[in-house]
């Protein structure tokens, strides 16, 4: 599975929970489901690509203006179609 698929596998089952890029990167690395460790920048790029595909939604935390991401309905549909692989 590639990084984008794994991000969807992390966010979809947790919807509507929203996470920062750093939190997503940390959880993906802890899962060891990637062939190598990913960086926050790589996760950020993948999230932006997924955002263009309408698979994730970007929100801004009003408390500290940080960006948080959550899966969209479209992302969840894709996750189900791909077998509901889950990053625990």
């Amino acid at each position, binding site marked *: 599975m590639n990084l984008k698929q794994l991000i969807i596998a992390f966010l979809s089952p947790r919807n509507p*929970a929203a996470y920062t890029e750093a939190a997503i990167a940390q959880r993906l690395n802890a899962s060891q489901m990637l*062939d190598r460790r990913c960086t926050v920048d790589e996760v950020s790029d993948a999230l932006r690509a997924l955002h263009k595909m309408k698979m994730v939604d970007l929100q801004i935390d009003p408390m500290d203006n940080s960006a948080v991401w959550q899966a969209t309905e479209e992302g969840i549909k894709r996750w189900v179609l791909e077998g509901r692989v889950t990053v625990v």
Partner: protein
Amino acid sequence: MNTRCYRSKIGRLPFAVRNELNERIRDGAQGAELLDWLNGLKETKRILREMGSSRGAGPSGPVNAQNLTDWRSTGYKDWLEDQNDADRIRRVAELSHTIATAAGGSAAGVACNIATAKIMDALQSADEDQIADLSKALVALRSGENAAQKVALAEEKNALAKEQLELSRAKFERDTTRLFIKWAQSKDALALATDKHLGSDEKTERLGRLMFGDLWEGAEDGK
């Protein structure tokens, strides 16, 4: 968290291949069929080649029935547990969102979604019984709130009905007073009301006919 590392032939295959193998096992595929498919993949051939060369030997033999049996009791078993984890995560996410909204968060609000994530992290280590208890408590809380809302609504309806009744009575009294003033000036009405030869029922009947005409008969017939 999924931090398992498998060193067997199947365990060293890429995640996507292992995942598809697990799905095929779950869907009831037979061993021979699985082995044919698995050994035909270029990823499998590459991994077997790499395993052999790391020992300074030729390629390892193909994945066999024993490898598959071992996988069923290790990697496949873990994968099944992970599938249950997916369902558990969904339940915990729903519960966390319920808690976040019950605490006053707007269901579609960013802060609520962030709080949901943080509550999820806190609940991650809770066992099934604790999660079930928490769910029950929230359901009971909501039921209690709904019951209280129903009582408040019923009280509000009663108050409105009472107010309406009082308004109707005031209107009736005002209308009756106006009628009295009007008919007190009528000689016919006055004669009927003061006729000593008529009983009370007869007076009522005749005055009713005088004052209301056909409407009086209609009221009497219950129309």
